[in-house]
């Protein structure tokens, strides 16, 4: 019962976060909103697992949390350096 109300409230918070996801002025706002949406989806899955007693869904939530962190980190790394490559030469080193 409590878990179902938790899932419903999280859905409301997720809908409000989606406003910023689609309307965010900068791409960093969108990345942040994607992370918030992923966190809330993880919590909704955990709440559904607690409500229905399906323990497998908790593994789904764990995998989702880790995957969303990796994806968000990769996207932010790309928009920091605009490349996925390692730098060819560090500062102060000779280019070979």
């Amino acid at each position, binding site marked *: 019962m*409590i*878990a179902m*109300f*938790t899932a419903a*409230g*999280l859905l409301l*918070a997720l809908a*409000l*976060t989606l*406003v*910023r996801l689609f309307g965010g002025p*900068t791409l*960093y*706002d969108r*990345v*942040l*909103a994607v*992370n*918030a949406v992923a*966190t809330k989806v*993880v*919590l909704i899955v*955990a*709440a559904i*697992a*607690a409500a229905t*007693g399906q*323990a497998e869904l*908790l*593994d789904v*939530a*764990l995998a989702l*949390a*880790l995957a969303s*962190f990796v994806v*968000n*980190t990769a996207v*932010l*790394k790309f*928009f*920091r350096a605009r490349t996925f490559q390692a730098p060819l030469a560090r500062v102060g080193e000779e280019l070979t």
Partner: protein
Amino acid sequence: MNPDLLIEAVRQGASGVLIAAGFVFFAGGVIGFLRFPDFYTRLHALTTSDGIGAVLVLVGLAVGAASSAAALKLLLLAALIGALTPTLAHIAANAAHAAGLAPLVGSYTAPRPGLPRQEPRA
């Protein structure tokens, strides 16, 4: 009164209180995320309160969980989210700052219905 029933009632009550406290933080984070003027303030509003809210909700679910294995997994999830959310906040702020996104400085009045919209002064 049956002691098992009492323990169960206290458990469900504590679970409900923790989840409600988590939702207070979620509400603050989402409202700040929607209304704050620039990326850095939004980051501050969202990531701090979202992390605490998620941890509180997960601990509340773990307190009310049916089996101890499920409770342990929920606590693991809470630890994971509690560690990863501030890390991602740091990465996001670092990426935005290094890419040259300037923060908004100066006074700012949030737009309100009924009042004329005021543009932020640079």
